[in-house]
């Protein structure tokens, strides 16, 4: 998956008790309580800066933050949709 090491570090930044190398692409971040909702909110903000994207509101749902793979998918999807928004006429 893309951005694994970036996302491992990002998770550690919002939850300093978490060791980044412990996280695999499919570690269940919510079920194992690696991230709570406040930390997700902080992470979205960092993610937006780091990847230069704007996550749309309907994407801010727990399902998109269940694992690093899901977050990576979200970033790629958001990049694509931001690009098409920017190139849309008008």
């Amino acid at each position, binding site marked *: 998956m893309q951005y694994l090491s970036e996302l491992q570090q990002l998770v550690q930044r919002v939850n300093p008790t978490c060791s980044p190398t412990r996280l695999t692409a499919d570690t269940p971040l919510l079920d194992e*309580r690696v991230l*709570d*909702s*406040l930390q*997700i*909110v902080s992470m*979205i*903000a960092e993610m937006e800066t780091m990847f230069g994207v704007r996550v749309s*509101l*309907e994407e*801010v*749902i*727990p399902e998109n933050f269940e694992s690093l793979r899901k977050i990576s998918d979200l970033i790629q999807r958001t990049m694509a949709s931001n690009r098409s928004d920017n190139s849309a006429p008008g």
Partner: protein
Amino acid sequence: MSKSTTDAPGFNKSSADRGLSGKSPMVVDVAIVGGGPAATFTALYLLQQGIRPLIIEKETFPRYHIGESLTGEVGAALVDVGLESKLEASNYPVKYGVRVYGRGGKNHFWVPVMKRVRPGPGGLAPARTWQVRRDEFDAMLLDEACSRGAEHLRGAAQAVSREGQQVTGLVVVTDEGPVEVQSKVVVDGSGQKTFLAQQGVTSAKERGSYANQVALYSRVRGEMRDPGIDSGNTLIFYSDRHRWSWFIPISEDQTSLGLVVPANELADSGLSPEAFFFDRIGSLNPALTSRLQQVEYTEKVRCSSNYSYRIQEFTGPGFLCVGDSHRFVDPIFSFGLYFAAREAQMAAQHLGESLRKGTWADANAFSEYARQVEIGQQVIQDLIDFFWEYPLAFQWMAHKTHTEDIADCFAGRVYSDTASEAILAMREVLRKKRAGETYQPLPTAVGS
């Protein structure tokens, strides 16, 4: 009757001379059904214009009522009607904001009470409001309205009189027999009794989005509050969608505690409402459980169901509805008293104008009032719908992207003709989610 009507400019002489047992009708400009805050705020605002209304309420106040929390802007309404000093002098707990605990109790977000000191970004300043004991608060409002010149007829409004579509008065049942009231305008401030809807005067009552919910509630002593100045804040705890609890400190040692869940869960449990309440309140959210370790219940457990509804046509010739008498949304963010106070203010303004211009019997006499009121109700409906559909995105907006817009909503600054960016964004997401369902657009301005 708690006040003599003699020389009251709002009353016809024939009513002033008439005793309750007399047969001649009471003739008034404005008859208000109900004695709760929607009714009494309307009365207080009318009195400011020199209009002395008749308040029809059969219950003896004080009486038990939930809905104890004020938003920031109710404070402004209390200032408006000259009651701020009474609130300041009372020992009601001071509320600085609302803390909402999410599922599992680990996370929470905070929306402070903020006043707007100037428009635009950065224009908010910390403020405060109160939690009130509704028995005392509602009695205080009624007493105040009567001492300023409103008349209280102790009785139950039973029927409306009409000439065509126009409402021209009421029949009120009192201990001394029926009393006929002739009015230019009937104001429905009857709350969830929705008097005018029951009479078939308004359009039919439609079930709201939260109609299948049930609320169970009581009061406790010995609960754990937040420390220091935060001890009076509202706490909300939720678990899964549409399952939540309120924790509203109402005095130094008592807190109103409520539980709201889908009604079928109570029915399916096979438990009494009381047993169900104790069972669920203890397990809803760990952050709440830990605050209830040492509590003693000081009130019986009460239960209200089927409480979300909307009436679309709630004004017309000779009548209008204020507050819960036309719409009731999920009460999670404590807008009940605010809607009552603010709609009363707008109603009184339109009532005064219609009496001065003689337009109270026009078909659209109060349609501009209705339009304004629906703007605010719809903002709150959308805010709450979005909160339940997208709790994480709501938290994201409240904390990061639209902090001020959300603080404005929570305070009650919801009547602008143009919705805030946050509300527009929420509506867009809800609209997409409901694509295929019918989305209710806002009513458009009359004549626009």
